[in-house]
Structures are given as structure tokens and as C-alpha cells.
């Protein structure tokens, strides 16, 4: 929260230092967006629209430009007019959590499981990462903290088989939500993406009646590569939502602005720490506040 305030103050005094609205001022705003990982293309689009708006509305005071810039970004974010609530109704529901290595999938699952259980849902977790060292033990610890049940096989076993068992268990135990962890994988690894596709097909085949949510977890410190990641993951397992983690750091996660519109998939949740309560709903308003 401290860093955010510092940033806002800096921009305000920067704007105040301008006597009039000129090219240089737009350059500075452009810099702010790019250093927030918004990306060159999206930044140029936003700034171009901003320029048009400023002209059309005959804005004269540099301070007012900020308001218009915020609105512009919010509009871009809201172009995706999809529901930002998790798709878990009607029961039963299954959530598949995917993403590249180390972004926060397992941690996010622990947080979500806890929230859902508190909401009165019967939650089950499936330990679909059978590859990484101690990934199963890590998820077991989270299941423990969240006070929910877990289905796990041993390290090195077939992840699709774990998910299959998870589905059978969820049916037998009449669970509301089954959350499936998967191993981190880079989107350019063909065999690992095929493995993920196999898991996805097991879900389609074995649990057709379930409400499906496929969450792509993206680390806020990631730069433009997130867009490539998202495209490939979407092809392989039809992403329905994005979770943006590690927003408690100094990275702004601006890449999700482009990511959302490219995929037409909404950001649903944000991770703001390592604790079990550090998960929030994505709020475009405060996201934009943090950038400018």
C-alpha cells in the first residue's frame, strides 16, 4: 500500500509540473504504462485513444488527463464483459488450475479451497502434479490448512489417472467442487502440453455434468511472455478465467490488460500474499489505481 501511494503522488506532482498538455506529457504517461508491463502495442492504443478524448473533450488542465487515462484503461479492461465470478454453480463443479512453473498454482488452490469451504461448499482437491519434488506434500499441507480432503497418488504416477480418481471420488462423496492441481509447464513444451490436454479430455469425458472452470495462473512479475503463454494454454485446455498472483510485490501485472482482450477471458482473482487469506476478487478499479 505504501508503494502505491508513493507512485500516485509522483504522477500527481508530475502532472502539476506541466503548464499545458503537450507531447512530452503523453510520453511520460506512456512510460508509466510500459513500466507496468502493459506492453508497447496496448500502451500505444490506450495513449492514442486518450489523445483523442482529451482533444474531443477540450481538456486543458494536465491534472484532468489522469482521470481520462484511468477511464481509458478501465474501458479496455471491461471490454471483456464476462462474469468475473468463479463458475462453480450449479454443483457439481470442477476447477482445473494450470500455468507455467512457479506462478502460484498450488498456493492459489489452497486459498480457494479454504474460501469455498467457508462458503459451505464440500471441497475436494486432486494432486495432479506428480512430477515436481514434494508437490504432493505441499498440496497436502494446503489441504490440511484449508481443512478439505485430498486425492493423491505417488510421485511419478500418471496425472490423468489422479484426476480420473479425483472425479470418481468427488462423485461418490457428493462434493460440490473438485479442484485439480497440475504441474507447472512451459507452454512451448509439446509433450507436457499434450499431457495437459489428456487431463482436460479426462475431465470432459468423465465429468460432463460438472460446471467447468479452467483457471490460468499468471505471475504479476511476468512480462510480455504471458500473452504467448495464455494463447497456447487456451488452445490446449480452453481457459475460462485468469488468476493474477503476487500483486503484493512492486510489479503491476499490466500484461493482463492485453491478455484479457486477446483471449476474451476475464481476470477473476488476484493473489496478494502467501497466506491463506491472501486471495481477492479482481477489481478493475483498484487495479487501475495501482498503475496510475
Amino acid at each position, binding site marked *: 500500500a505504501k*508503494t502505491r501511494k508513493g507512485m500516485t503522488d509522483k504522477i500527481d506532482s508530475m502532472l502539476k509540473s506541466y503548464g499545458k498538455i503537450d507531447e512530452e506529457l503523453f510520453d511520460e504517461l506512456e*512510460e508509466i504504462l*510500459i*513500466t*507496468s*508491463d502493459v*506492453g*508497447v502495442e496496448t500502451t500505444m492504443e490506450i495513449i492514442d485513444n486518450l489523445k483523442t478524448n482529451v482533444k474531443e473533450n477540450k481538456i486543458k488542465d494536465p491534472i484532468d488527463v489522469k482521470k481520462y487515462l484511468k477511464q481509458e484503461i478501465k474501458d479496455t479492461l471491461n471490454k471483456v464483459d464476462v462474469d468475473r465470478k468463479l463458475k462453480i454453480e450449479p454443483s457439481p463443479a470442477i476447477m482445473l488450475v494450470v500455468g*507455467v*512453473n*512457479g*506462478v*502460484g498454482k498450488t498456493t492459489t488452490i*489452497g486459498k480457494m479451497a479454504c474460501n469455498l469451504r467457508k462458503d459451505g461448499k464440500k471441497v475436494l482437491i486432486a494432486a495432479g502434479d506428480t*512430477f*515436481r*519434488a*514434494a508437490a504432493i*506434500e*505441499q498440496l*497436502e*499441507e*494446503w489441504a490440511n*490448512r484449508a481443512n478439505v480432503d485430498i486425492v493423491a497418488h505417488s*510421485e511419478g504416477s500418471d496425472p490423468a489417472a489422479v484426476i480420473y480418481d479425483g472425479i470418481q471420488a468427488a462423485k461418490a462423496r457428493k462434493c460440490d467442487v473438485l479442484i485439480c492441481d497440475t504441474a507447472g509447464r*512451459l*507452454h*512451448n*513444451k509439446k509433450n507436457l502440453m499434450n499431457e495437459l490436454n489428456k487431463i482436460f479430455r479426462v475431465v470432459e469425458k468423465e465429468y460432463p455434468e460438472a460446471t467447468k472452470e479452467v483457471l490460468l495462473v499468471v*505471475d504479476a*512479475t*511476468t*512480462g*510480455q*511472455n*504471458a500473452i*504467448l503463454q495464455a494463447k497456447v494454454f487456451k488452445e490446449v485446455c480452453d481457459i475460462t478465467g485468469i488468476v493474477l498472483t*503476487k500483486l*503484493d*510485490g*512492486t*510489479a*503491476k501485472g499490466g*500484461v493482463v490488460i492485453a491478455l484479457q482482450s486477446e483471449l476474451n477471458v476475464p481476470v477473476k482473482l488476484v493473489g496478494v500474499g*502467501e497466506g491463506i487469506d491472501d486471495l481477492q476478487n479482481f477489481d478493475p478499479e483498484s487495479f487501475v489505481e495501482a498503475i496510475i
Partner: protein
Amino acid sequence: MVFESLSEKLQNALGKLKGKGKLTEKDVDIAMREVKLALLEADVNFKVVKKFINDVKERAVGSEVMESLTPGQQVIKIVNEELTKLMGESESKLEFSSNPPTVILMCGLQGAGKTTTAGKLALLLKKQNKRPLLVACDVYRPAAIKQLEVVGERVSVPVFTMGDKNDPVDIAKAGVEHGKKNGNDIVIIDTAGRLHIDENLMEELQNIKEAVNPREILLVVDSMTGQDAVTVAETFNEKLDITGVVLTKLDGDARGGAALSIRAVTEKPIKFAGMGEKMEQLEPFHPDRMASRILGMGDVLSLIEKA
């Protein structure tokens, strides 16, 4: 692909000018705009890009276009040379203490790849006939200790742990003592991931440093990192005076502009590249290859080198 576009754009912008005479300020300006955009797309930090572009511009204006090249290629050649210079021209190796054990401290943000890299380093050093010991100082993340134990088992290197109820500073001290007693000439300390703005945890690292006097303090950075890489690297370097960087997940397709940003702000060498999740997948870092990866023009560059 984005990759081809920079060289194409440069050829298009400058191709019309025949490959004779000197580069004019106007040629260079046109070219620099494209280079700037390409670097930003590759996640090189904004400020680093600005400075880099200015430096290159100075050198490029008025330089002779070689007989065999077009002005576009000539600019690429200069950009690549300057980029390589900035990245550091040659490989940088691990340093060892004259008075063993050599203590190596791993640090970095959450999920960067510290624990995995600790295991990889242990394996690499074992192959060089060293006797490494891994020390588990991450007492926070669920199953972090277990993870290091599994990693240690995979590479057949002993792991020193004291559970998660002890202070990481005490564990580090005891780990080094244990290493001394057991004839380990290398002690690799795995620490918990932390944010550079987390005062308490950054102080913990400083205390570990003070307690065990590491020969190497390696900052582990994910090669997919965006603009924030400079802030992170700058802060870790300020607080700990790191000795080097490990760039992980380079087996992905990120252009890896973070490498350039980190190098520019810390002036510390990138010593290793993580090339996969398996324990053998750690390589010495090649600055020159990174330059062409960031520019995304490996093919064009090899063409120019032949010219």
C-alpha cells in the same frame, strides 16, 4: 512471428538506401525507433532501453556502412555489438573460497527456481569432484524442506535440515558447521522466496550473510520477468551485494530482456542459465547468445558475422 519483424522492419526502413557511405542521423533515428520497440517487447526495462538507445545512436551516426552490408544490417551489427558488450563479453565462473567450505547463498523472489537451482548446482559441483552439502533454510513455504530433501536425493547430495521451527540464521550457521565437520567443501544454502520490499525477510538474508560469510550470493531470476526485474535486482543487490545471477526457465520462449536490465543496473554477471526442470539442466550463461535472443535475430546475426 515477432522475431523476424525487427530485422524486416529495419530492412524496410533502411533498405532503400544503398549500402554505401556513412549512416546519417536520420537513418539512425528511423532504425533506433524500431530497435527501441523491439527491446521493450522483449521486456528490457524502459530506462535501460532509453540509455542504451542513446549510447548506440552516438556510435552509429557517421559510421561507415560496410561494403557487404546494407544500412539496416549495419545498424543491427552495431546494436548487437553494444548489446553484447553490455551483457558482459565472456562466461563468468563460480568463485571458490581458499578456505573451504565455499558457501553459496541462493536468494530471490517466490517461485523463481532457487530450490531447483540449488540441486542443479550441487550436481554440477559433484561432477567436478566437489562434496557439496545442501542446507534447508526455507522454514515458511509448505513442504519446502521436503522438496529440498527430494532434490538432494535425486542428485545424491546430503541435505542438512533442522525442521521448520528454527531460525533460518541458526540453521545456516549450523549447516556450515555440519559441512565443516563432515568434509563438505561446498555448502549451498536454500532460502525462502521473498519480496524485495519485505523488510523483515530481507533483514533475515542480511543476517544469514553476516553469519556464514558466503563466497557467492546468487540471485535467482525467472527469465520471464518483465519491467520489474530492475527494481528486484537493484534492491537485492543493494541489501546483499550479490555476486551473480542465475537466469531460470530459459527453456521457455521468453525473449529474456530481464537479463539485460539486471546486468545494466547491478553490473553483476549472470553465471548460469536454467534450461529445464531436470537436475542436469543447468548451463553456463553465454552473454553473446543472450544478446541475439533478446533482439530475436539469431539468423540475421549469423549472416552479418559471415559478411
